């Protein structure tokens, strides 16, 4: 239902600094898939994600979402199809706004915004119920500014925000990378729970090979702007981090940064 065809992206084109980031990526994402994307630094993981979100427009190629061509759509227009959690917990919400204001901003994602009061008690009840399931006590802090929350709390909230309005795909950009191991584990559990609960089609970029293997039901490996490895669930369950590394050694892709697990 989401298909990327022959996507090319070059940074600083036509200058001595020109750097190809994606070289003809083809990818079909079926509804309900939870894809993990791994690869070394500069492999094109984040670029791939940004091409889908609209933050980077591709030089060549085509992006279709359910037969609709969104290749030229800017980020704001794609927001009704794409929801996103950023790597930096501070990036996904407004520190100076309250929890409820951030939530209602996310609730209206993809809708026309008018002059009606943004918040009312019906919303607040709904938000409280959603936040209570996090078991972080945030349901009693609707009027607190987000800036008062810890990085982990903010990331948990970002996940809830990303699932408030419907989306064709959820993009997770190394969203546990900036957190301590315990919090990262909690956020990953929450991610799994929300993705299952809302049956979300998900694309998660991760630096960690172990995470890439443990989570999701399809694994992509990128290298130098190309997809070099694409396995589905049946194959993925039999793989170990060592297998992946061997495979890369055979392909001449041995790269120290891939050892990060």
């Amino acid at each position, binding site marked *: 239902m989401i298909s990327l065809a022959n996507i090319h992206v070059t940074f600083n084109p036509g200058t001595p600094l020109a750097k190809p980031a994606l070289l003809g990526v083809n990818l079909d994402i079926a509804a309900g898939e939870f894809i993990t994307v791994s690869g070394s630094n500069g492999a094109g993981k984040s670029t791939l994600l940004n091409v889908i*979100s609209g933050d980077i427009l591709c030089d060549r190629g085509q992006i279709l979402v359910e037969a609709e061509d969104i290749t030229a759509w*800017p*980020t*704001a*227009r794609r*927001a*009704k199809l794409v*929801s*996103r959690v*950023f790597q930096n917990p501070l*990036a*996904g*919400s*407004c*520190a*100076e*706004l309250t929890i409820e*204001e951030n939530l*209602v*901003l*996310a609730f*209206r*994602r*993809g*809708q026309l*915004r*008018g*002059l*009606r*009061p*943004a*918040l009312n008690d019906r919303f607040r009840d709904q938000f409280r119920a959603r936040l209570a399931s996090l078991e972080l006590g945030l349901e009693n802090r609707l009027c607190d*500014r987000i800036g008062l929350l810890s990085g982990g709390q903010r990331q948990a909230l970002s996940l809830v925000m990303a699932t408030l309005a419907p989306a064709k795909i959820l993009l997770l950009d190394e969203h546990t990378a900036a957190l301590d191991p315990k919090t990262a584990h909690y956020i990953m559990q929450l991610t799994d729970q929300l993705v299952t609960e809302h049956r979300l089609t998900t694309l998660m970029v991760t630096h960690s090979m172990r995470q890439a293997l443990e989570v999701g039901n399809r694994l992509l490996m990128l290298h130098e702007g190309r997809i070099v490895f694409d396995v589905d669930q049946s194959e993925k369950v039999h793989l170990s981090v060592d297998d992946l590394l061997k495979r890369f050694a055979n392909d001449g892709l041995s790269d120290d940064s891939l050892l990060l697990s």
Partner: protein
Amino acid sequence: MSLVAFLGAIETGLLYGFLSLGVYLSFRVLKFPDLTVDGSFPLGAAVVATLITQGINPWLATAVAMVAGALAGLCTAVLSVRVNILNLLASILTMIALYSINLRIMGRPNVPLLNQPTLFDGLESVLPVWVILLVGLGVTKLAIDWFLTSDLGLAMRATGMNPTMASAQGIYTDRLILLGMAMSNALAALSGALFAQVNGFADVALGVGTVVVGLATVILGEAIFPSRTVRWATLAVIAGCLIYRLVIAMALNADFLGLRAQDLNLVTALIVVMALVLPQVNLLALVKSKR
């Protein structure tokens, strides 16, 4: 300070209240350092004075002045978000251009409005000018509160705070900057239009330092009444306006200080510095260290 001087300060404070609310929208809500108001404030005065002397109804003239201000704000916003000129520079360019445009509109550097009808005519016999201004400013404040707590206004606030997050939430940040800048400069022009009618003239040099005055009142309000919600923030802006004018009036009226009217800009600069520094000074720590 005499009662006349006191009421005069209040009246001027209220006149500039609209400007300050506009500056709050650009500097605080959109985080857009906008110097356009130095041009759009006298633009409002120029438009209203020219139209009234040509026999146009003062209410209509004031409305046209606001539209002119909105266009000036749009001009700056377009230069910034569509043409990609640095926001501060974009606003300076519009401000400079407006100097010439204001001269063109008036046809000369100064237009007197003595013995001309004004917006206050029918009302003045019933209520003093400062009461009319207070009511007008109060209504404007409530309208801005309503807007900023609506879905659209919340989107505008998000645009100023975190544009990346805003566009990921489907907010067209460019359009909200255009809208906010138009609103901000419409308010500045309204301030200028009312100033001309209350004081009986429009002058091309009226705008010099307007942005500093606007910013001074916003910062002063925030320093005295720190607040997190929009409703209190806009109220603090208005309070800042009144306090600023009273401080100026007191400073200029205090004979022992020896200050005169030409020292106004110096006093303004000092007030801004004080309002910025005072919140950083921890009075308790200062007292303890003295012990």
